[in-house]
């Protein structure tokens, strides 16, 4: 307790030097929490959007389907197993049929993924109902805002699409954009045309077939489905988490730089203290303070920087983080152009664990860098310290 009081008194007595260090440390503190919160928010939002627009309650894949290999699509179609079809009939799942094709908006050729989806589905949050309401002669097509921007297509635009049917025969027809959906998931937007499932089945001559079947959220994922593969929600999220993990490694470098800034400030300050306060250290020893307590005093002074930084960070960073967590920060660009799931407003998610963890990490690092120069004090002879010489 005595050391704590002395350390605090020394710290506050040092005035500007202390507050500069505390300010730098608090800046690092808040920035690390701020950035971590953004990544957390980004991750949670991405998971939520992926679940709502794509994954729902998991999926059943055709045995030949590999989303990373488009060449498998020629073979990746078939009639889903009976139990899966029963789920579809009960509204607990919906089949999706995929094929590769090309589109020719205003004479340009673009490769696309053509996806058939039941217009009346309510399993994923895509506005597919509009596909069922179309009464024109062309093939109704639903596209995302990103795709609209890339292909320069608006609602009502008619263009040619070409595909290859089950026999390998190329065919083509006119398609019309019936709606443009604003969806943050590029996985259901970029390079994709959404058609009514039955229309696509007719085009491909694949009646009753699907490439995969999406289960409704909360529906039981069946196990006995022949050679089709059940893919739980965790499978899809893990893929996404891997991507986020890869991206967050860049953030870790930033955290390391911020922590190094804070640590360097404290280390510099403590090293300076040794040289500027060596007579004081000698006096403490002459008055009967043992070396270990002198080390503890200086280490406590350093460690206390992080406590003061946490308090200061709370004063100026608390409202800032609260604002970001509740109001968010609007994205300056259309999120659909980024190619990753991104909310129009970035909302930070700041958990107690994250704040506590960051606090603990900064406190430990700052205390450690305080201990190193403090240990040097322990080696100082009292007579040398009193005369102002260091060994």
């Amino acid at each position: 307790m005595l050391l704590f009081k002395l350390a605090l008194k020394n710290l506050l007595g040092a005035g500007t030097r202390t507050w500069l260090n505390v300010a730098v440390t608090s800046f690092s503190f808040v920035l690390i929490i701020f950035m971590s919160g953004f990544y957390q928010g980004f991750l949670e939002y991405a998971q939520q959007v992926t679940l709502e627009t794509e994954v729902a309650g998991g999926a059943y894949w055709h045995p030949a389907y590999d989303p990373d290999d488009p060449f498998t699509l020629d073979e990746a179609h078939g009639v889903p197993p009976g139990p899966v079809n029963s789920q579809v009939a009960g509204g607990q799942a919906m089949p999706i049929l995929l094929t590769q094709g090309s589109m020719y908006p205003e004479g340009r050729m673009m490769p696309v993924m053509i996806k058939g989806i039941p217009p009346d589905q309510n399993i994923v949050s895509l506005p597919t109902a509009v596909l069922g309401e179309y009464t024109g002669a062309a093939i109704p097509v639903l596209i995302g805002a990103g795709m609209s921007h890339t292909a320069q297509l608006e609602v009502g635009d008619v263009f040619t699409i070409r595909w290859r049917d089950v026999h390998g025969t190329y065919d083509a027809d006119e398609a019309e954009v019936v709606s443009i959906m604003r969806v943050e998931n590029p996985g259901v937007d970029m390079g994709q045309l959404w058609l009514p499932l039955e229309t696509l089945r007719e085009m491909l001559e694949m009646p009753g077939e699907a490439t995969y079947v999406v289960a409704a959220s909360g529906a039981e994922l069946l196990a006995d489905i022949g050679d089709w593969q059940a893919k739980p929600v965790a499978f899809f999220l893990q893929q996404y988490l891997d991507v986020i993990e890869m991206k967050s490694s860049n953030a870790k470098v930033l955290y390391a730089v911020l922590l190094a800034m804070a640590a360097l400030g404290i280390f510099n300050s403590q090293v300076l203290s040794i040289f500027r306060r060596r007579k004081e250290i000698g006096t403490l020893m002459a008055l009967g303070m043992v070396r270990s307590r002198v080390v503890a005093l200086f280490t406590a002074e350093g460690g206390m920087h992080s406590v003061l930084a946490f308090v200061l960070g709370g004063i100026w960073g608390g409202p800032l983080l609260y604002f970001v967590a509740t109001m968010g920060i609007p994205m300056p660009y259309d999120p659909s152009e980024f190619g990753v799931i991104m909310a129009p407003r970035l909302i930070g998610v700041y958990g107690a664990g994250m704040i506590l963890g960051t606090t603990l990490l900064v406190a430990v690092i700052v205390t450690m860098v305080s201990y190193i120069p403090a240990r040097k004090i322990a080696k100082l002879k009292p007579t040398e310290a009193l005369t102002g010489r260091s060994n």
Partner: protein
Amino acid sequence: MDDNHIVEIRDLVKNYPVGGGHFTALRDVTTDLVVGEFTGLVGPSGSGKTTLLNIIGGLDAPTEGSVTVLDMPLGGKNHKELAHLRREGIGFIFQTFNLLPVYTVFENVEFPLLLIGMAADERKELVDQALEWVGLTDKVKSRPAQLSGGECQRVAIARAIVKKPKLIIADEPTANLDAKNSHNIMQILVHLNQELSTSFIFATHDEKVMGYLTRIIHLIDGRIDEDEHISEPEYRKGK
């Protein structure tokens, strides 16, 4: 150790390594300091005054010989035991005051009592008493930077005397003070010496200090050249 002795020094040698060899700061020093003495180590610069004070204070270790302070032989003692000796039994007064700059006068004087672990009430009583002895009761909340040199040294004296140690070691206590302040400081120290029976040992070459000493040990080139006992110090003759 003789009951009347507060310090016993036998055949003390202190060498400092210099280059490949060594410099002898003290050689064959043998002497005793008696309880209540007001002793000065006098000699030119480099004669070994401060070295001898540091060894008596447990701040430095002898190369040869034995030193016993307050019944504790210092040979072979670790830094914790020496720190305990200083904390409990010795007060220090430095030439440059060595006050802790961020502490107030009260806190500076209180510091040795905090190290002992004394209760707050008792601490306050002793600090008030020490500040009264040195005449600084009106400066308790001041910081060292707000005080004159003489006042700083009075705070340092209060800090040294507050725990009522048996021995006070003072290294050139008046070197940074003018004549008036020097006499003032010495009068305070003489008063404390007489009132508390505290033994004082000074390193000095200040003539003004010498006028107050009851014993003067002359050091030359690390040896005791003369040990002079004074029955009636100069300051008494002037009264």
